[in-house]
């Protein structure tokens, strides 16, 4: 009957001074004390004291950690179940208990308890329902009975204040939990059942069966303004009418929760996962393309959603970085990205890209007329424009000294049997028209990008070659 799971002295209760060292802060006859006791005894019987992490709630039982000689953590109001998730996922060997009252669990923490229950993760929830807010001084709880007078339902709870919430039934209705029971403390028989239920809830976790939930109808004599024995009677006669006792759900027999992962720290695995390669990179460029701009070339690639402007931009960025330059790519941002135009700003810098935006690019690749109309006039004097002459039939006036190359990206791609590769046609054209990098630089980047889809490489190489050829033919 005695248990070592209570601290030998409640040091955290007023430094364990005087009576407080061995006496709880609960009012005489409060049901919390009994629930604590049965919890402590169950922990003791199962031999799990060292593994337990108890999460204290906000409410009268906020000071659970004064008493239980286990790992303790104190949660924000209503959040105990998710704090418990944090502990359980951090250490799957820990036995995590979320101890909560009715305001905590059934009001402010509804989202947390419902989602955690449905997650089904093996934690044990002990839910103390005493039909009233204790800590804040006897206000209405979500579990307050109809007609019951509280500080915030002075004339009794009416339908305007909502109906009492049956948590055990609600939780039992979910697929996640393996064990849900409602018990009480008002007589010897109920106490035996309560003790058994609390122990079973812990067993569900020890045996990794899953989420368990025990609702305990408890006495709050103080706010019922009854003596403790009359409160027991009130729970037996009034509360159980609305909150019937008994087993709500038990699928523990064959239940088994999937093993929670235990992290690995292998460096090979990590490098593989993040896609880091130890292979030597091949370089083809002998110098930075200073003929296009000194130190930093700005490009813009613009088209409609499916034109592949972003992929082409990514290929340029990859190619540049392979060559040892710095490069950035920013996709279009804002509502445009949800349809309509898609454009990419790219920089290739000899040493470091400073501003990554390219409002006035040196090079523009335009896949459709609106893109050329919008960005063509912003190209820097002396810049180069490569555009899809399959879709763009009239070229707007471009700044002085800007060279424009019309290449039928779409037509060429269609002739090759895949309009999808029109962006690679465009890259071929860009390479030929600007000599941004040697041909091999682009092809190397394209092959790398298609590592997983080798079969696509010849088609893309061909597309690239046709794009280049089209510029030469012009």
């Amino acid at each position: 009957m005695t248990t070592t799971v209570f601290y030998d002295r409640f040091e955290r209760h007023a430094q364990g001074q005087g009576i407080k060292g061995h006496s709880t802060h609960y009012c005489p006859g409060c049901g919390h004390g009994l629930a604590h006791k049965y919890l402590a005894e169950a922990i003791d019987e199962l031999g799990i004291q060292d593994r337990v992490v108890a999460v204290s709630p906000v409410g009268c039982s906020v000071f659970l950690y004064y008493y239980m000689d286990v790992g303790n953590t104190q949660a924000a109001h209503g959040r105990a179940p998710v704090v418990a998730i944090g502990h359980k996922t951090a250490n799957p060997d820990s036995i995590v208990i979320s101890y909560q009252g009715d305001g905590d669990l059934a009001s402010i923490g509804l989202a947390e308890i419902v989602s955690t229950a449905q997650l089904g993760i093996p934690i044990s929830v002990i839910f103390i329902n005493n039909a009233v807010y204790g800590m804040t001084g006897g206000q209405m709880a979500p579990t307050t009975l109809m007609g019951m007078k509280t500080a915030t339902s002075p004339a009794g709870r009416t339908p305007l204040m909502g109906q009492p919430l049956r948590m055990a039934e609600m939780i039992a209705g979910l697929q996640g939990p393996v064990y849900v029971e409602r018990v009480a403390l008002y007589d010897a028989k109920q106490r035996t059942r309560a003790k058994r239920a609390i122990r079973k809830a812990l067993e569900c976790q020890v045996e990794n069966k899953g989420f368990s939930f025990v609702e305990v109808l408890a006495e709050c004599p103080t706010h019922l303004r009854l003596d403790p024995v009359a409160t027991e009677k009130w729970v037996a006669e009034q509360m159980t009418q609305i909150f019937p006792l008994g087993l709500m759900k038990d699928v523990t027999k064959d239940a088994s929760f999937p093993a929670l992962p235990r992290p690995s720290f292998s460096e090979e695995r990590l490098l593989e996962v993040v896609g880091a390669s130890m292979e030597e990179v091949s370089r083809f460029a002998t110098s930075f393309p200073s003929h296009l701009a000194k130190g930093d070339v700005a490009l813009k690639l613009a088209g409609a959603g499916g034109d592949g402007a972003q992929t082409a931009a990514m290929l340029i960025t990859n190619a540049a970085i392979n060559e040892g330059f710095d490069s950035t790519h920013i996709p279009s941002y804002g509502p445009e990205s949800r349809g309509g135009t898609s454009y990419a700003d790219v920089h290739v810098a000899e040493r470091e890209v400073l501003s990554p935006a390219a409002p006035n690019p040196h090079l523009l690749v335009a896949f459709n007329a609106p893109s050329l109309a919008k960005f063509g006039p912003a190209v820097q004097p002396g810049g180069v424009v490569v555009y899809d002459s399959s879709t763009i039939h009239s070229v707007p006036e471009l700044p002085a000294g800007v060279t424009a190359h019309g290449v039928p990206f779409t037509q060429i791609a269609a002739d090759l049997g895949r309009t999808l590769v029109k962006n690679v046609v465009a890259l071929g054209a860009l390479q030929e028209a600007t000599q941004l990098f040697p041909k091999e630089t682009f092809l190397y980047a394209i092959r790398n990008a298609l590592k997983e889809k080798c079969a696509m490489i010849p088609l893309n190489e061909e597309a690239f070659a046709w794009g280049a050829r089209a510029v030469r033919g012009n």
Partner: protein
Amino acid sequence: MSQPQMSERPKPFVFPEYCKGCGRCISVCAKNCISFGTEINPQTGLIPIVLDLEACNGCGLCITACPEPYGLQPQLPEVDYELIDPATLFGPRQSAATPAETTPDELIDLPATAPLVIKGNYAAAIGALLAGCRHVYGYPITPSTEGAEFMAKYLPQLDGVFLQAVSEVATVNIMYGCGGAGLPCLTFTSSPGFSLMLEGISYMIGSEVPGVFLDIMRGGPGLGNIAPEQSDIKLACRGLGHGNTHAIVLAPSTPQEMLDLTMLAFQLTFKYRNPVVILGDGYLGQMTGRVTLPNKMIRPGLPDWAVWGDAGHRRNLICSIYLSEPELEEHNKRLIAKYAAMSASEQRADLFHCADADTLIVACTTPAQMAKGAVQQLRQKGVKVGLFRPVTLWPFPIQHLLPLLKRVERIVVVEASDGQLEDELRLALSNAGIFKPPLIENIRHYGGVLPGQTEIVNRILATQEVAS
């Protein structure tokens, strides 16, 4: 063969001090051994019960009915309870466990690898993995979702945990649990989500729980939009929930820094047992760039203070409650001393052409990159301008700014918010006793519009003309 006699079952005993007189034991005794007392106990002011055990059969029902841990106890035959001081009765428990010591982090060498070409959000995610973080919790919110998606895809391959929580409120509290268990954990979020996490961050600071928050800031207020704004500087620097709170706030401006500063964030969050906030913006999160991996990764240890769930850590408590005013004041003083230590040792700034600058641009995250471009352009025109880029927004790197003030005639704060960065600058200057700072001007944009390089150049040139 002697069966134990029924009468050998222990009878109940209670110290009057530990009986609250609730009477729950009375109704349960079929032998009527227990009755309400009549005398008030002078120590408790309550009236304990009276036991008359003549008829007691030791059924124990009264003991099970007593809500007090040290209330009714089974009376062991060999102990004469009446002679014992109750405060010493229950003696120290034999806890076999020696308190756990901190297991230090382990550094693992990494071979040289080719630079990665990745988005800022992915770079931050990889930084977290390299720092030993295998626990990521979150609620999807644009423009930070790539981070969560990356983790959802790759953490299982590293036997890590990615869990999508029911809300940001749940997320921060799961982090409270995981961080309280002593493990590195992270979330990706964006402004509206960050607002929801602030309460939980206050609890983490109060309970000294580590955790890293990556906030990819977006346009507000309200739902605003998903374009880049520097909208949460005030929250991260001045508004981390209720109470006297502070956390180190890091502001990367390139994908490489997204990785480097995320790694640093984990180091700092454990060093100070305090959350760390990383502020990015949507532009930076989406930006692809060159990212070089470091030559070490970390296998995290386990701190001695963790509530881990084993014998060695059993004595630990994660909690922000200090009921007595002097105790809470002491706790606050300790936290404030910690903030002062962070302030003294963790100020970081990046200085670009600052040494001879008479005009200083102050900017962070993506606008700082625009400003950097502008500085280079202006330098080519012979304008003596520099960029002062705070890498820590809190603590503001005033130590690095003060030496520059001798030369600087004007400061132009370039930002995508209504002066949230400028407020930090002004506060830092004033706290440093600079009451007559150089002229402070600003370029501000809102709602996802970022200050542009040309705009900055033109403004500074106009200012120069006015000045000359």
